[in-house]
């Protein structure tokens, strides 16, 4: 425990060092540099930049920029106030560049695979796994299976979605934790990353709905159960409604992860904004508190994303089962609304 505390404190000290190196230079140019520094460090970029320990030297690794034009000259950069700007997808240029956050996702994937291979590789002749790592890993895996998948989807359908939920949980957890290490970045503080994760959940949710209701039942649900003359309005309404859940997943994870890092940076930035080292006596302990909170948030956010994913899959499965029996979900609402006893009654005819 003491070793863990020392390790965390060392990480924080290194993070403070890494965060404070640049503003020390930036303060000479004006207070607005602190905000610019913070935004630069939480944003994605085509460079992997880090400070060399015990010096003010910066090392920038330029990452490959890959643009795929849909038509001739679509990816020609134009000079703006922010430098050379390459047109986006709406102008016909697909940006597949390797960015800082892409590298972080790769690092998280590599670490996750290494962890799985090391901790899952045990003596098969022994029933009980030995070692703290293997037991911790097993505890988390069982938690995701028993408390998230089965409790939100059901005992019958839940285990089917455990591999997806485990992947999401550990991938998000590793990305969140990586951002707390010095010279690293939080990929989950990038809306494109959280959006991609939410799209995965969206696809699995729809597959779960189709599996439960059948393709016919799923498509019937999209009509909203109204007269065919009203379908031109109702079908877009239902399709739009499908995207509200992944949108919530995207924004929640992105905002939570980004906010924590900005708060830490701003607390440290106060030292430079106030122009006094004495402010550090208050700002650094506060920042350290937020850092510990971030450690907790890393687990909580991975849990919440996975829990909500399981909940949405469960809702989709339940909705599908209603359609399967042609009652459009009304009876379940009735059964549940009246408590556990009527819940059974509500589903008895299924």
């Amino acid at each position, binding site marked *: 425990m003491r070793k863990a505390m020392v390790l965390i404190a060392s990480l924080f000290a290194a993070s403070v060092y890494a965060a404070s190196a640049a503003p020390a230079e930036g303060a000479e140019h004006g207070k607005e540099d602190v905000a610019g520094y913070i935004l630069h460090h939480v944003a994605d970029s085509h460079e992997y930049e880090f400070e060399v320990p015990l010096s003010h030297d910066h090392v920038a690794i330029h990452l490959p920029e890959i643009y795929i034009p849909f038509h001739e000259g679509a990816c020609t950069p134009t000079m703006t106030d922010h430098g050379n700007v390459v047109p986006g997808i709406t102008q016909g240029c697909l940006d597949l560049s390797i960015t800082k956050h892409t590298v972080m996702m790769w690092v998280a994937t590599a670490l996750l695979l290494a962890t799985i291979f090391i901790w899952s590789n045990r003596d098969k002749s022994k029933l009980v796994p030995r070692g703290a790592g293997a037991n911790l890993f097993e505890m988390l895996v069982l938690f995701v299976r028993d408390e998230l998948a089965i409790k939100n989807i059901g005992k019958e359908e839940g285990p089917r979605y455990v591999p997806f939920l485990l992947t999401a949980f550990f991938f998000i957890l590793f990305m969140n934790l990586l951002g707390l290490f010095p010279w690293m970045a939080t990929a989950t503080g990038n809306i494109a990353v959280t959006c991609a994760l939410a799209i995965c959940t969206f696809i699995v949710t729809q597959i779960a709905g189709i599996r439960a209701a059948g393709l016919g039942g799923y498509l019937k649900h999209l009509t909203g159960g109204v007269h065919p003359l009203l379908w031109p309005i109702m079908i877009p*309404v239902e399709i739009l409604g499908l995207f509200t859940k992944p949108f919530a997943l995207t924004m929640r994870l992105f905002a939570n992860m980004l906010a924590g890092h900005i708060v830490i940076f701003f607390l440290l930035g106060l030292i430079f904004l106030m122009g006094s080292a004495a402010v550090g006596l208050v700002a650094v302990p506060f920042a350290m508190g937020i850092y510990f909170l971030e450690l907790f948030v890393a687990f909580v956010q991975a849990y919440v994303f996975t829990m909500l994913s399981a909940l949405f899959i469960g809702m989709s499965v339940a909705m599908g089962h209603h359609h399967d029996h042609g009652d459009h979900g009304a009876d379940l609402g009735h059964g549940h609304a009246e408590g556990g006893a009527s819940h059974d009654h509500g589903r008895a005819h299924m």
Partner: protein
Amino acid sequence: MAEEPREKGGKEGDELSPTARQMQAAVPYISAVWKMVGGAVVGVLGGLLMDRWLGTKPWGLVGLSVVGIVVGFYGFLHEMTRLGKKK
């Protein structure tokens, strides 16, 4: 001990957490509310797009907004009536 055979979607809800049960119970009601809100949203967006493409400003927006609101409200009432009948 052999587990009892379970029909599709039968007693599956028994082991669900209270949150999952409540959320699943709320699905038809959320769906009904979304129909009302979504109808207006789709109507307004459709009207704006229609005005832009056909140059009918502001009649596309006015017309489709009204249609969207009416259809959304009808969808809401339709769903609530069905829920009421089930009760």
